[in-house]
């Protein structure tokens, strides 16, 4: 059974943002690798290490492939040429740049995905609802996260219904287009009809409610966590400034 963080969702997000911003600002490979390992350890504690690795690889593999192509295959500036063929030059500097960019993207992706795996989505919705954010935001977040599995399920059901009624799809681009049309048109029209029905019910009940309202779900929070969040938010701005200010002075 996967575990979720006992912390307030905003505490997790603030800590992840502070760690990511400071790591990107420092820009040392060993620190990026250490942050990635720490994220993996936390995911292992939450019993989601395999899921984190799978999701991260799915996002990072094409992005890193792109960075390798752009910076190591077509580097015009580097002096240490490892291989060259026509306009293509593989240089040591280009490979180093691609590696550094890959680590930077990796820290952002892995830290972000870890937050998603550690935070309970119902806690996140409740936290947004209890925050000073407009009440519409909590509704939109909750409705979207709950609608996603419902629409995916409906999309599969529509596909099965089309097969049952004997709709032939064919191959190639024509078959693909027909498949998209047969699934997306009923899906979109049905979803829009549902939204129209829902809006009448919500409007009749005076949504969005102005003023305070009672929430039955509470989110774990404490004075210490609030202090940690304030410090983390300060670190998001001050950490990179403290690290990078000397380089600005040097450039000036």
């Amino acid at each position, binding site marked *: 059974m996967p575990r979720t963080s006992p912390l307030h969702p905003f505490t997790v997000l603030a800590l992840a943002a502070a760690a990511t911003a400071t790591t990107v600002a420092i820009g040392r490979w060993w620190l990026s690798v250490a942050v990635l390992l720490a994220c993996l350890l936390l995911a292992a504690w939450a019993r989601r290490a395999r899921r984190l690795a799978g999701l991260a690889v799915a996002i990072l593999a094409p992005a890193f492939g792109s960075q390798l192509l752009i910076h190591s*295959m077509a580097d015009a500036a580097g002096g240490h040429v490892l291989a060259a063929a026509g306009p293509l030059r593989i240089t040591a500097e280009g490979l180093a740049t691609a590696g550094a960019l890959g680590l930077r993207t990796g820290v*952002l992706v892995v830290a972000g995905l870890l937050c998603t795996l550690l935070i309970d989505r119902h806690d996140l919705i409740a936290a947004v609802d209890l925050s000073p954010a407009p009440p519409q935001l909590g509704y939109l977040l909750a409705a979207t996260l709950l609608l996603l599995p*419902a629409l995916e399920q409906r999309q599969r059901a529509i596909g099965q219904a089309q097969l049952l009624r004997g709709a032939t799809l064919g191959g190639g681009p024509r078959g693909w287009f027909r498949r998209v049309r047969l699934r997306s048109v009923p899906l979109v029209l049905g979803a829009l009809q549902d939204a129209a029905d829902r809006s009448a019910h919500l409007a009749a009940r005076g949504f969005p409610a102005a003023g305070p309202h009672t929430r039955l779900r509470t989110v774990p929070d404490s004075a210490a966590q609030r202090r940690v969040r304030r410090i983390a938010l300060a670190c998001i701005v001050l950490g990179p400034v403290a690290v990078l200010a000397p380089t600005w002075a040097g450039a000036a």
Partner: protein
Amino acid sequence: MSPNLILPETATGHPMRRRMLAAAGALLLAGTYTALVLTQPTGLVDGLGQTVALATFAAYLVAALLLLAAVLPELPVSTLTLIPVALALNIVLGQFVGSVMVPLYLDSLGTVLVGFLAGRRAGAATGVLGTLIWSLFNPTVLPFAAGAALVGFLAGTAARFGALRRPYLAPVAGLAAGVLVGVLSAPVAAFVFGGTSGVGTGALVAAFRSMGDSLLSAVTKQALISDPGDKAIVFLVAALLIYALPRRLSAGFAFVRRHNVLGSRGSR
């Protein structure tokens, strides 16, 4: 899609404050873009490169959040219930299209639908919200929130000025929107990620770079090849879906009625 029968439609907050927030967001976006294009920093992973990456990421994200804060409190209930459907459609259809190996995204279909039916403010809000929620599954999309807001804003603008009154006008509007969105998003791809998110687009950027282009120039050219085609298809598909809607549904949106978005199709 009836209007509120019991309570008057009131927007919370102050109109002047919302206008100031929207202006601040637009200014921040325009200022960051102009600064990046004029200075075109060369280093990507040195001290200056890290500064540019973090500043670009933060400025584009903060600008998108300011625009969202300006727009969200004034959206009517009919639009608020439409937005989650649009966000879920973006994700579900984007994943489905992506899973069949066709080089299209179609992940802004819901955003464009909202822009067409509920106007540019609702479209922009949907773009930002869609990116924020999508970032729970893929954090790299976060700094592209401003580009997604622009897609929704331009869809609403195109619908307001008659892009849905003739079927052939929608893809033309999509082409123009794709150019603007590609140009706006290129600095994020170049300076935050140092390239693109896919190997195919990366190969295109590498080809432009090997011909002597700067990174920003190469990424912009690649975006100008990919984005207009994708947005033209998305705008056309969204227009066809809206034509297929029952009239009582499409006419339920005040924006569609006020600006005669569907022309003679809406009065049939």
